[in-house]
């Protein structure tokens, strides 16, 4: 800590902070345009000038000057105020005075400072800029005439997002912010630049002219897309979520969001939302009352084991536990599951076997505290972009080593010093086994490992996985495997990340155990900066696991439930929020099951492909309309309050299930809070949590680890001549099938595509955007081709989110499907 005097006030501040930060910490406001908490000091705007006595009273920028012991600082002498006024006058010389039509009005730093410093006239004369305004971009509007060249957008895009779409171009008075060769903006549209822009130079186009900032009511919430659990501020007016509002003090990510979180909110107030219950009469879904619909549903649910349920892990913890209770106590069926069963198997089977707990032993905060990251089979920038930002900051600012083991390259591979090893799809478990083998061979295993249960069996099983033998089938050289193993084992702190999800059929319990073995073998778990982080796909995937919403003690899993629908064992199927027809593997099988089941009940926000087949459709509501808790991938339990009233006659799943329990003669809990009290009483790690203690920050549910070595089964890959390995997964702009209803993501990524390597494209004479037929043994699909450098030869990638071209028509759930391409 250092002691300094600011405006005659004795203050203390941490040693590594600047004068600006020291003042801010102590409640002294210094005006600034070019500073953001997350970014490195830049010193562009010259608004934050202060006088330091030791520096002979010169005016120095406080945002770039470190605070040192004994500094005597003045922030508001008449000279400083004069200098600041001059800066504002010079900025306003070229800045258009179009506040009435500028959407930043009311939230504009320049406007506020102009008002504070009463700059109502200008001593200089100059013409305004005449830069062309980019109206064409669907998400980000760039009006460089308003730019004050603070460089925040350039820096956030480089330092945090690591895309580098924007930069300063031209020199002197001509300087402006633009893309390379003044091309239109073509980036990942995370909108970080928009969030930090102090003026109206960068604006969110979906929010254009929708409302003034002062008319919005801000509601803290938690993003409803992926499992990262980013905090979100929803800007609400007239019961409509109009935008997401940037708040640099929010969450571990300090307000940083990805394209889905920032621009994907439109599904909440979508015109396509279901507003009333629908009942199938004479083959057509017709509007009905809640009473009528619930009465039929309740009667149909009284079927014991012939009733089954599939729920989305987007439901809140309270809803999932209540749902489970209804299934077990009121209906008497053990057949309920989420996420097709396999998407949570890594946790519920893999981690349970290896760690004795169905949760990751590391948190997102460990990323920046680690020395080495091993990212397995994911580009976190694509699956969990905000975690990707964390990795980027760790790699660039803290020198964390980054090793990637994946079947394709991604944006992470472009980070400085990233070591990417691309393996043949399906070989991941073999490679991980080889890594373990190499660690034991190089005598790098932790001393504690030998005494752990399962060690001898593991050593025996690993015998067949020498780096040399695996190198032959995995496409990674033995040398690289040995180096990767040595790197991982010798790092003081190392963290492994791997994703699960509906699109990642290969990410099974075996992958989880293989990864866990690596961590256990080297003793890299249960410590700061160490462990294995299983990245869950949906906002409450981890919650669904914690709440036990998956089959145990003889219940059927999701895929068995669908089989049982076809065979007639399951007569009533209740689907809450899932869209199996698009997201579960094997379209034909799912369709047959949904057609065959006697009675299908769907509760959803939209009339999805699955809901269209239903006998009764119940309108549910989104995360913005209900109260509850969500558990993020690292077991951070976060509480959300409703931001808007429910749309139409929709009801939350909590209310729907409560009414059903009441109709079946049970006594449902009165409020979600009551249900949460039950959760905290019964769920390990959730003890002592209440809505009040969760607050805005949420709380971590601790994980207890009991490590055991488990031998994973490596998949046998059979390469077929002339065929390509199909890898499915999620794409940056989408998450599940929900983002199909968010305008933002759909603007940027409207259709499915097949991504292939240049070599494969040339050999099949396919060009970018050609319509290609992809066929597998289970069917064929027409998709647009996308030729890219990141995909290795012999592999094609298809995202799974799109109902118009569902990849499950050609993919039946196996980790690797062999496909052929034709034009």
């Amino acid at each position, binding site marked *: 800590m250092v002691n300094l005097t600011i405006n005659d006030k004795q203050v203390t501040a941490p040693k590594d902070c600047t004068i600006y930060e020291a003042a801010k910490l102590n409640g002294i406001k210094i005006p600034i345009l070019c500073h953001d908490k997350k970014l490195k000091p830049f010193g562009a705007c010259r608004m934050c000038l202060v006088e330091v006595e030791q520096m002979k009273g010169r005016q120095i920028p406080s945002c770039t000057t470190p605070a040192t012991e004994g500094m005597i600082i003045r922030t508001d002498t008449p000279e400083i105020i004069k200098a600041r006024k001059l800066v504002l006058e010079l900025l306003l010389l070229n800045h258009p005075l179009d*506040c*009435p*039509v500028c959407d930043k*009005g009311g939230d504009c730093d320049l406007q506020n400072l102009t008002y504070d410093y009463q700059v109502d006239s200008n001593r200089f004369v100059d013409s305004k800029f005449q830069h062309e*305004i980019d*109206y064409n971009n669907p998400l980000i509007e760039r009006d460089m005439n308003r730019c004050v060249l603070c460089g925040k957008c350039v820096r956030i895009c480089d330092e945090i997002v690591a895309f580098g779409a924007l930069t300063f171009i031209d020199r002197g008075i001509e300087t402006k912010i633009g893309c390379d060769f003044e091309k239109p903006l073509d980036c990942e549209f995370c909108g970080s630049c928009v969030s930090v822009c102090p003026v109206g130079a960068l604006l969110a186009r979906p929010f*254009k*002219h*929708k*409302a*003034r900032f*002062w*008319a919005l009511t801000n509601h803290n919430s938690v993003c409803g897309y992926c499992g990262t659990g980013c905090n979100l501020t929803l800007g609400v007016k007239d019961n409509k979520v109009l935008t997401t509002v940037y708040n640099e003090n929010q969450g571990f990510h300090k307000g940083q969001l990805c394209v889905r979180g920032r621009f994907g909110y439109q599904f909440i107030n979508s015109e396509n939302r279901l507003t009333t219950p629908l009942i199938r009469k004479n083959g057509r879904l017709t509007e009905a009352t809640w009473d009528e619909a619930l009465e039929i549903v309740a009667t149909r649910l009284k079927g014991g084991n012939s009733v089954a349920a599939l729920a989305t892990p987007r439901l809140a913890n309270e809803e999932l536990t209540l749902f489970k209770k209804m299934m077990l106590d009121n209906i008497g069926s053990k057949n309920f599951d989420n996420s097709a069963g396999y998407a949570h198997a890594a946790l519920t089977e893999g981690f349970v076997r290896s760690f004795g707990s169905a949760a990751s032993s590391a948190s997102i905060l460990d990323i920046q505290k680690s020395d080495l990251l091993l990212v397995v089979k994911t580009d976190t920038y694509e699956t969990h972009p905000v975690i990707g930002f964390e990795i980027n900051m760790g790699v660039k600012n803290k020198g964390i080593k980054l090793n990637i083991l994946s079947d394709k390259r991604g944006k992470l591979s472009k980070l400085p010093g990233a070591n990417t090893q691309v393996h043949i799809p399906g070989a991941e478990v073999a490679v991980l086994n080889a890594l373990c083998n190499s660690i034991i061979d190089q005598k790098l295993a932790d001393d504690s490992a030998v005494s752990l249960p399962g060690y001898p069996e593991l050593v025996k099983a690993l015998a067949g996985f020498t780096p040399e033998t695996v190198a032959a089938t995995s496409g990674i050289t033995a040398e690289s495997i040995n180096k990767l193993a040595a790197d991982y084992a010798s790092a003081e702190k190392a963290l492994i990340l791997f994703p699960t999800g509906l699109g990642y059929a290969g990410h099974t319990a075996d992958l989880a155990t293989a990864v866990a073995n690596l961590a256990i073998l080297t003793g890299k778990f249960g410590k700061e900066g160490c462990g294995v982080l299983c990245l869950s796909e949906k906002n409450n995937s981890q919650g669904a696991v914690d709440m036990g919403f998956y089959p145990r003690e003889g219940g059927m899993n999701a895929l068995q439930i669908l089989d049982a629908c076809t065979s007639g064992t399951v007569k009533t199927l209740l689907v809450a929020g899932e869209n199996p027809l698009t997201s579960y593997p094997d379209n034909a099988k799912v369709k047959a099951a949904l057609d065959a089941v006697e009675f299908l009940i769907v509760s959803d926000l939209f009339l999805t492909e699955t809901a269209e087949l239903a006998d009764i459709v119940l309108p549910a509501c989104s995360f913005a309309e209900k109260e509850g808790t969500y558990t993020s991938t690292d077991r951070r339990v976060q509480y959300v309050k409703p931001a808007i009233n429910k749309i139409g006659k929709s009801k939350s799943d909590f209310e729907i299930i409560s009414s059903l329990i009441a109709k079946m003669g049970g006594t449902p809990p009165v409020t979600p809070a009551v249900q949460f009290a039950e959760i905290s009483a019964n769920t390990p790690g959730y003890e002592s949590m209440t809505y009040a203690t969760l607050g805005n920050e949420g709380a971590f549910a601790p994980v207890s680890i009991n490590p055991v070595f488990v031998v994973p089964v490596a998949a046998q890959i059979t390469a077929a001549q002339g065929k390509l390995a199909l890898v499915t997964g999620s794409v940056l702009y989408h998450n599940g099938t929900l983002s199909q209803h968010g305008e933002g993501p759909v603007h940027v990524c409207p259709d499915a595509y097949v991504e292939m390597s240049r070599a494969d494209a040339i050999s099949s004479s396919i060009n970018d955007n050609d319509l290609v037929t992809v066929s597998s043994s289970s069917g064929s699909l027409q998709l647009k081709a996308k030729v890219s450098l990141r995909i290795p030869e012999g592999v094609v990638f298809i995202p799974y989110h799109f109902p118009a071209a569902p990849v499950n028509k050609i993919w039946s759930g196996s980790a690797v499907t062999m496909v052929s391409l034709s034009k």
Partner: protein
Amino acid sequence: MNPITPIINGMSITFKHMFLKPVTLQYPTERPKVAARYRGLQGLKVSHDKAKCVACYLCPTVCPAKCITVEAAEDANHDKYASKYEIDLLRCIFCGYCVEACPVDALKMTSEFELASYSRKDFIYSKERLLEKQ
């Protein structure tokens, strides 16, 4: 005092007024002269054949009676304009803050004071009704 005196005084005043100019107005056949700064019905000013209003939302913000509803939109030239501009006269208190707040001088208070109507919905003045008559 003589009890008759006040009556005579009163009657003399009454008699005097018979020769003065009447203070009452034979409305509606006679029209009042409205002062230049009278605050009557609002009017949206027109310039270059379109409303001057740029939908900046300052008038609904400043309005103490919350009687103004504005919705902004983007026209073909990407300019901001009010796609909806409504004043609920049943709530309006004719304070004139809206006119004072307008940064582009798009709003004025006209001398129109005959605002009675038979139905409530007629008191909601849409943009078309508020636009300055040529």
